[in-house]
């Protein structure tokens, strides 16, 4: 499939619905399971992931095409991308601490852990594999982040409802959460006809 021909707007919405990085690729599961207990903190983490994904894609794209490719250093890609991600997360941490102390405290350790959130790294790799343009990459980063945020907030809502449900003991916690995530991803498959190109 020729991904590079898809316009940024379609990439953006595609990343949210049809190619949701969490529900179709199952990336970023650890913080998805850990922080989806509460809608409020999952919203905060989702927002942080949107910011980090958008920013890392926007930074990694020019670094890849203007520095690594001309110097034939693509093999260094993984190291460089992760350095950029780590730096972006540091920046986000400073901003969040300055802007909203309560959000900073709610996210706690999961904020620095976005560094190793595989969804963020996955988004960087997908944008090169699919050969998106710069705008496409930015749209993919923001859309991918939004899609991830949408999935975690939906999950947090479902889990809040589920608090009163009777779950078989062996399935409590992560078990039932994974089953719900599976059903959610089936539901998201229904979107696939909506944006034909992406």
């Amino acid at each position, binding site marked *: 499939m020729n991904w590079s021909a898809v316009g940024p707007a379609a990439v953006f919405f595609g990343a949210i619905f049809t190619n949701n990085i969490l529900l179709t690729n199952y990336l970023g599961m650890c913080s998805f399971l850990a922080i989806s207990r509460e809608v409020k903190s999952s919203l905060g983490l989702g927002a942080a992931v949107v910011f980090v994904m958008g920013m890392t894609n926007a930074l990694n794209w020019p670094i890849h095409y203007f520095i690594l490719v001309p*110097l*034939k250093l693509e093999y260094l890609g993984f190291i460089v991308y992760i*350095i*950029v991600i780590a*730096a972006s997360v*540091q*920046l986000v941490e*400073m901003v969040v601490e300055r802007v909203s102390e309560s959000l900073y405290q709610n996210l706690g350790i999961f904020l620095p852990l976005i560094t190793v959130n595989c969804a963020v790294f996955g988004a960087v790799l997908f944008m090169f594999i699919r050969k998106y343009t710069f705008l496409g990459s930015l749209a993919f980063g923001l859309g991918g982040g939004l899609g991830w945020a949408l999935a975690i907030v939906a999950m947090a809502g479902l889990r809040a409802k589920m608090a009163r449900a009777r779950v078989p003991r062996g399935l409590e916690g992560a078990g039932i959460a994974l089953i719900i995530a599976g059903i959610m991803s089936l539901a998201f498959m229904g979107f696939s006809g909506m944006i034909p190109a992406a």
Partner: protein
Amino acid sequence: MFPIGAFFIGIGTAAAIAAVLAVLLAIADATIANYGEVKISINNGSKELTVDGGRPLLSTLTSEGIFIPSACGGRGSCGLCKLAVKSGAGEYAPTELPWITEADRKANVRLSCQVKVKREMQIVVPEELFSIKQYETTVASIRDLTYDIKEVTLKLKDSQALDFKAGRYVQFVVPAYELTPDPVYRAYSISSSPARKDQVELEIRLVPNGICTTYVFQHLKVGDSVNINGPYGEFHLRDSERDLIFVAGGSGMAPIKSILLDMLERGIRRKATYFFGARAVRDLFLVEEMRELEKKLPGFKFVPALSNPEPGDNWEGEKGLITEVLSRHFERLDHHEAYLCGSPGMIDASIKVFKAKGLPEELIFFDKFA
């Protein structure tokens, strides 16, 4: 041939990208995370400080020469550095909550190591804390008490004097070395007599990979300079006529020894029994000194108890957990007072025994090692 040029280009590029990002972060640190100069008003304006914002309140005050008691050195794990912050602290952090009671909440009491100085603050510092000072000392001697406990004697420089009540503790300042990039503080009870104001003795037990204990066990030499600050704490002998029960384990020996020496010094001759819990003979120390004290202090009895004596120990004394020994020893505790020092587990278990034997809580004093 291996393309050495390409190899260096690769390393150079990666390093250059990392350097650019580091510069960006340094700029962000100086702008976004820069809270500028912040005013801290202490005790309704009786003292005003102007400090650089962005750091925890505890270390900010320390660098201004105001020492707030803390045993863990600002990690939020001891709960000692409580201070009333009337304004400017923001919401409670989850790391503070385990230490904050309902009453603390009403009085706006915060854990000063977890509160960052970001805007103008009004705080309340108890007057007696202003007398806490930093002292420069020289290591006069280091002695092995057991295989894992050392006794470190620190002599104060420039004929300074440290005035303290027996049972108090000081903070030992560990300078930056391979285990820590910044100086850290660790609390140790003073084991020497308050009559000796020119020196303090500390009993330091090896904690595997502990920042301070590794420093003391592997780096500290006689003649080295060490900074301490203090004295801190609420643990001391109360005035009364009640019989005394002391309970300690490991380096919990330190404050009890100081209290006993102080009793000798001041002619206090109350009936006292000191239960010292250890695993085996190799964990026992200062037994000779305690036997000496038994001769000098009429009514004082030292009872070491071993929980797991080794076959070669030939142990004739008390056996069992300290709680078992305590409950064997006393029927009813109606004219007693208890002082405990050691691990939280030992203290909590002993308090249960004391309460069951009728000793009211307000007559049980303890110093828990966090």
